[in-house]
């Protein structure tokens, strides 16, 4: 962006510092937020390309463009990048940093230097993971779950990739620590807990999951490295170890990690829906507390990933029951969003379209999750394409679409320019249709018995696989249009100033783009985040 063309002094230019060092050594939460944003977006696009290659391979039975070993490596790298480099750091790192301090009326996060350090750790981990792809004896081929005993025996470069994820875990913990402290200590006068924007509530719940669950991933991955390097036998049944213990340890983190991915996305939806419905959010307290309830209950359900692992029947019963418990706070949110829409003055602009599609896609993802949460049906579809379809409905259709919604909703605020609405609507419709073709076909294929992580399949699965691949192309074309339109608009589009969306949260009360210190004087909060009448918004 060219700072000279901006309408006024802002965080882009008011410190007088320019050049790359003014960004990579900046402790301003907005600059760090943008560093995260462009980093995660870059990795997202790489992983999208890998996903498209996987779909091309599956377009027809037999070998299409790659062999089985390459296919194994590609789905591993696709998963590792999407999970650890895009969607886990995406919301807290990018939009959490950009928005949360302003929404609570703070000048910055509690530990700005630690915040910058988190980004550096994230980049260090990312570089190590990327290095693992091109060094040693080939990229890891274990899947993003690094399951033992395969991950401890394969000759591919698992140790380095695992070490990269280990480093990124520290980045996530530090961000969580920073956000919990910031939300507790730096709220403006009058910003009580029941006046916190719901996006902040969702980040708060997420931060706790980051702090409490991520260390377990770190320990688990360190044990995988120890197993590979030292042959400790911890997960080797022949030497008194327990391979199922690895799955417990891995999913103790990785199931709550799903909530690191989805909770802030729910926060974004809770911001967009009231603003574009012109109505205060329905059931504010229930939505806020359900974020915490999802984080708490969601941390106790990891065993539903292991129903076919040989785990005890007692554990299957307990984890299956608890999985159904998570549906309650999730449903509370969905019903409250729908109730907010009821009799609202709905404005169907790009952020709202992404939010509405979140409602549908997340609901499909959530309800198909119940099929996986019930042990009897899970055994039928375990490790099939159904799981892949379900997961993408939750994480891409849910978190991904919320991420795109957040990009359209908040990025103009930080650039002072906006995108064109019509191409955004076309891009959204292409993505929505392409998404459903791609992933619904996968769920049907899984129901019919097509396993996941196989590069070949029986001829009877060919038509739906072809349709899924064609859907992925439509999805990708929509994504390209979305990005071109958005970034062209942010750099050269119409000016975006004031409060064009009509939001009542604090970020809409500061200058566009915001100054480095966010507020000219410390704000005093006198109304709730969705009290449109008190703020004079029609």
């Amino acid at each position, binding site marked *: 962006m060219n700072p000279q063309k901006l309408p006024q002094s802002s965080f882009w230019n008011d410190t007088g510092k320019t050049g790359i060092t003014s960004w990579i050594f900046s402790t301003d939460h907005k600059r760090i937020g943008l560093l995260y944003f462009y980093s995660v977006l870059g990795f997202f696009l790489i992983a999208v390309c890998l996903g498209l290659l996987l779909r091309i391979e599956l377009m027809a039975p037999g070998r299409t463009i790659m062999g089985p070993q390459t296919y194994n490596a590609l789905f591993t790298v696709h998963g590792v990048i999407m999970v650890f480099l895009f969607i886990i750091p995406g919301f807290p790192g990018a939009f959490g940093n950009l928005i949360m301090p302003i929404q609570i009326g703070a000048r910055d996060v509690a530990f700005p230097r630690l915040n910058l350090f988190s980004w550096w750790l994230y980049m260090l981990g990312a570089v190590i993971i990327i290095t693992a792809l091109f060094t040693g004896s080939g990229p890891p081929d274990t899947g993003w779950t690094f399951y033992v005993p395969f991950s401890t025996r394969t000759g591919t470069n698992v140790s380095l990739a695992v070490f990269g994820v280990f480093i990124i875990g520290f980045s996530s913990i530090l961000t969580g620590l920073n956000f919990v402290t910031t939300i507790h200590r730096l709220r403006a006068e009058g910003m009580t807990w029941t006046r916190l924007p719901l996006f902040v509530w969702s980040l708060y719940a997420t931060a706790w999951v980051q702090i*409490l669950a991520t260390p*377990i991933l770190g320990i688990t991955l360190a044990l995988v490295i120890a197993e590979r390097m030292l042959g400790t036998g911890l997960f080797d049944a022949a030497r008194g170890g327990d391979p*199922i213990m690895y799955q417990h340890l891995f999913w103790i983190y990785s199931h709550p990690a799903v909530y690191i991915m989805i909770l802030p996305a729910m926060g974004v939806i809770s911001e967009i829906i009231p603003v574009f419905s012109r109505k205060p959010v329905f059931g504010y307290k229930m939505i806020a507390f359900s974020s915490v309830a999802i984080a708490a209950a969601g941390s*106790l359900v990891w065993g539903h990933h292991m129903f076919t692992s*040989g785990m*005890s029947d*007692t*554990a299957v019963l*307990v984890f299956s029951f608890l999985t159904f418990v998570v549906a309650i706070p999730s449903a509370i949110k969905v019903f409250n969003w729908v109730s907010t829409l009821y009799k609202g003055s709905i404005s169907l602009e790009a952020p709202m379209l992404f939010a509405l599609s979140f409602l549908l896609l997340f609901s499909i993802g959530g309800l198909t999750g119940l099929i996986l949460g019930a042990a009897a049906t899970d055994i039928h579809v375990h490790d099939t394409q159904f799981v892949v379809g379900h997961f993408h409905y939750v994480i891409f259709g849910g978190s991904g679409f919320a991420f795109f919604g957040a990009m359209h909703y908040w990025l103009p605020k930080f650039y002072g320019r906006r995108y064109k609405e019509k191409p955004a609507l076309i891009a959204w419709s292409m993505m929505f249709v392409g998404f459903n073709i791609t992933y619904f076909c996968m769920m049907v294929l899984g129901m019919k018995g097509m396993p996941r992580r196989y590069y070949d399949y029986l001829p009877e699965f060919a038509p739906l696989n072809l349709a899924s691949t064609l859907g992925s192309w439509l999805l990708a074309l929509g994504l390209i249009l979305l990005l071109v339109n958005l970034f062209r608009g942010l750099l050269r589009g119409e000016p975006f100033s004031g409060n064009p969306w009509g939001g009542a949260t604090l970020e809409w009360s500061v200058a566009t783009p915001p100054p480095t210190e966010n507020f000219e004087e410390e704000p005093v909060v006198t109304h709730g985040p969705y009290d449109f009448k008190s703020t004079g918004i029609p």
Partner: protein
Amino acid sequence: MNDTNHHIISYTKLTSVWLTLLALTGLTIWVSGLDLGVNRVWGALAIASLKSGLVIAFFMHMKYEDKLLRWLLFVALLTLAIFIGFTFFDVLYR
């Protein structure tokens, strides 16, 4: 944050805690040699909990911190206990 309330622990107290930790380490080694059957795990966990409790209370100053921090730490420890406890639904009944 109020830095003026920062509590300084005397060297005598720190040394006492350190010596207690060393003694408990010796106890851990001694207990591991006893034939306690399944109770061996609980014994080791009990001593380890006592040791970590001393570290948290004195070396991490938690004994002198306000309620909020103690509560936050309690949540973390409770979560860890639940994680371990729930794993036993599998291990004990397999």
